[in-house]
């Protein structure tokens, strides 16, 4: 079982993802340079947060053209597990691996703080270890996390149980005060129709140690590890 963490120019949560997987969860993990097209040997890929190419254009719009994204596309098509966090989520949306897009936060400011998100489905390899409706306390840190999609897509997302996380109050209720960025229908994370690709704006890798204020992000990585343990071998 081996994790890969993609490094784009401007990725800056790559080290954090690697630390969470390697040092906290003691799983094999390596960086993957954005110019690499070879994902052989990897069983799950993390597309980490940061500011790929400075986010000077639309977030993720340049990174999606990196050579590694071609390989990632192939990897995902054969069922490989891909987790996009923050900028990684934005890149996966740009690449068409996930539905929707991320606009600027409604307040037009960067927001960094702990928020609460509710697990909306446990039927994904990234949430299977959670309880349905479990509330997680996990930080966000973004200026463009306002999820949108068209009405048809939203209907599809609901019908296919693709909404993985919603922003919520500490008690799990949905009220507008607990939606930090104006996301459509409180959506904080979605998975692909085939359920093997998931993106979310909050940073589970920042919530894996009590010393950092929360361990609620562990459930995402533990789900992933359990899913990989069920898989016979590397998919690519």
């Amino acid at each position, binding site marked *: 079982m081996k994790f890969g963490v993609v490094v784009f*120019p401007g990725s800056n949560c790559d080290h954090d993802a690697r630390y969470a997987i390697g040092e906290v969860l003691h799983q094999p993990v390596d960086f993957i340079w954005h110019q690499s097209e070879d994902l052989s040997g990897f069983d799950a890929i993390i597309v980490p947060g940061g500011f790929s190419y*400075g986010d000077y254009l639309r977030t993720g719009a340049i990174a999606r053209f990196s050579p590694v994204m071609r390989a990632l596309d192939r990897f995902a098509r054969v069922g490989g597990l891909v987790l996009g966090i923050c900028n990684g989520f934005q890149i996966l949306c740009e690449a068409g691996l996930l539905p929707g897009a991320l606009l600027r936060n409604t307040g037009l400011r*960067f927001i*960094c703080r702990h928020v609460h998100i509710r697990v909306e489905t446990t039927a994904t390899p990234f949430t299977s270890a959670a309880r349905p409706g479990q509330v997680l306390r996990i930080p966000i840190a973004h200026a463009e996390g306002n999820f949108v999609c068209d009405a048809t897509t939203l209907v599809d997302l609901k019908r296919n149980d693709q909404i993985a996380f919603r922003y919520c109050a500490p008690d799990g209720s949905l009220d507008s005060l607990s939606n930090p960025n104006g996301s459509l229908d409180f959506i904080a994370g979605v998975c692909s129709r085939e359920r093997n690709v998931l993106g979310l704006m909050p*940073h589970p890798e920042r919530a894996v140690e009590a010393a950092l204020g929360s361990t609620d992000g562990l459930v995402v990585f533990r789900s992933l590890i359990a899913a990989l343990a069920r898989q016979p071998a590397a998919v690519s």
Partner: protein
Amino acid sequence: METEIKVTPQLAAEHGLTPDEYARVQKILGRVPSFTELGVFSVMWSEHCSYKSSRLHLKRLPTQGPQVLQGPGENAGAVDVGDGWAAVFKIESHNHPSYVEPFQGAATGVGGILRDIFTMGARPIAVLDSLRFGSIVANNDGVVSEVIARNRRLVDGVVRGIAFYGNCFGVPTAGGEVAFEPGYAGNPLVNVLALGVAPKDQLFFARARGEGNPVIYVGAKTGRDGIHGASLLASAEFTEESQQKRPNVQVGDPFLEKLLLEACLEAMATGAVVGIQDMGAAGLTSTSCEMASRGGVGIEIELARVPQRETGMTPYEMMLSESQERMLLVAERGREQQVFAVFRKWGLDAVEIGRVTSDGLLRVLHHGQVAAEIPAQALAHEAPVYDRPAAPPRPASPQSPEPRVTLAPPGTDLTQNFLRLLAAPNIASKHWIFEQYDHMVRTNTLAVPGTADAAVLRLKGTRRALALSTGGNGRWCALDPRLGAMHAVAESARNVAAVGARPWAATNCLNFGNPEKPEVMWQFRQAVDGIAEACRVLKIPITGGNVSFYNDTLGKSIDPTPVLGVLGVLEDAAHVVTTGFRAEGDLILLLDGHRGEGTAGAGASASASNRSAAALREFSSSEYARSVTETRAGIVGGAPPAIDLVAEQRLIEALVSLAGQGLLASAHDISDGGLATALAECCFAAKSLSAQVSLHACEQAELALFGESGAHAVVSVTRPNLAGVLAVAAQYGVAAHEIGAVIRGPFRIQWNGHLLVSADVSLLADAWAGAIERAVLGRRDSGKR
């Protein structure tokens, strides 16, 4: 070849060189300088680069200690923090650019100090900002003057600029402080502190050596931006025309800097890098001559090889450009390809533009023609040094020492006053600001802003953590610069100790007015003496920093504002102490480093009436006196609290020891807003907890609740730990008064049997939490006076 402009004494004067300095230039060269040489001398000998007015006085600062690996004089200071690691840190100002262009000014301030850190081989792990602005609160009649509206725009622009750069670069902006005083309206202060870490045997220095070694330019291309930033923006007073200097402000590219960081650290790891320096103020000029001078060698560069983003740039423009995100490095001859390969991988320019020579000259060629040829040592390290005249300000200044505060009659309920104090911008929550900064990236932040007295960053791979705090009180320094500066050191050190870290080293940013004014020079000398004395007593060496003079607009100088950044070391990161109360039933103790009775620090040996007069004078300079009592608006009176550095030292030692033994549930030093504010903040940082406190004090109620005398802290402890805490306090000679308990229910403070403050924590929190956002965004001010 272009024909260069001919240099005349008048042209030299326009470049800011005095007749004496120009004569000195001619003597060094033995001839009239070329136009490029004049430009080069004018930036290197500017106040900003040469420290010509401050150097003589900075020598009085203590800079030695067994922990010091690198003191002042390099890109940044470095100290040994244990387990083989070095902490590299420094604070710098970017005041003038931030006034002219707040977003880019603040952004490039962050970028500049980050380069200073990673050019030493250290990966930046935290940034703190110390900011000062004019008032952002509407007048009593609700009118928002043009000045206040501008101050609000400055706050917004500076915060956005810091967020833009730090967030993209990927360094947590983990702390700092913000204060608002009318004196900064025409000249805000933007001081940025950066901290990095590196294995202590793998530090890099800005020294050239090895004749024939290649000099390599890396990073962004050179443009015409920022020319004369150091000399014209940072080394002259502001006038109404200063807005026209906007083209002198650089433009930041945090993405490029992030690439530069990764590429530099990777290039250093190859072992092929001999020396490296970032191109900050004075750009290519300062890097080339300083690296040559420090290494005792010469450097020859060919400007035609410099990557340029504009055509037709002259040698003068290229040497003086302050384009950001550039570095100059010297590599080992024969291994330059290893360096080039790394920079190619990261998509950055890396070009050999010259070589190290043995003649001690900075020789600048342009298409083979000599554009400048100057002894590097004379240029970089033999700038003129001035002992400028100093004289105390005339006592007729508005800062007269008489008490100006009128106290409420004994027994008056102070709840309303307390609510107003909590909503005062200097006291109110800064979460609207720090939530715009990514303060968690790199997953080392053990205490997010607002939850501890200092930023705390763990050192991965060890059990250690580093704590950092910045502090400085311009209002006190205006009244007494020496005493105010001592408080700046003591408060920052106390903050670091409150989280459980031992104060280990400090960096300082000295923000003052025009040094050619004798009263400013007097303030500067007094402040340096105050810092020196406090650092000596508290055993905190200064490892570097920055002096920012000429903070004057339209002839008016800012309040003298020395900002101290104190670094502390926690041997066990598990023992970090935060400010929030932890559990109902815990006991609240007031720790007082003064051995005497009572909670006031004023004049322990004086008679009772003298003591009371002195205490009132000191209280007149408090935040409460300024923002709550009916004093004349904007006028600061009284004197800073007297300071007892030995008492500070005792309290620091006690706090570090208590934390190290795991005896504290929470700790918070008492500073702005006094004991009552500290108690409320301990509640705000807790989950649904409150405090019930009863004071038995001989001093008046408002002094006991809101006084700001130093060497005090509030701690909470579990009942089983009480005896242990009292024993440690006694061991260090610190008085520990049990003043109350952590409860659920209303927040209450009694004074000599009178209930003076009583309110739900949620009510207090409402006043405190939204005040800054309401003010900056111009929303209706519910905390209106």
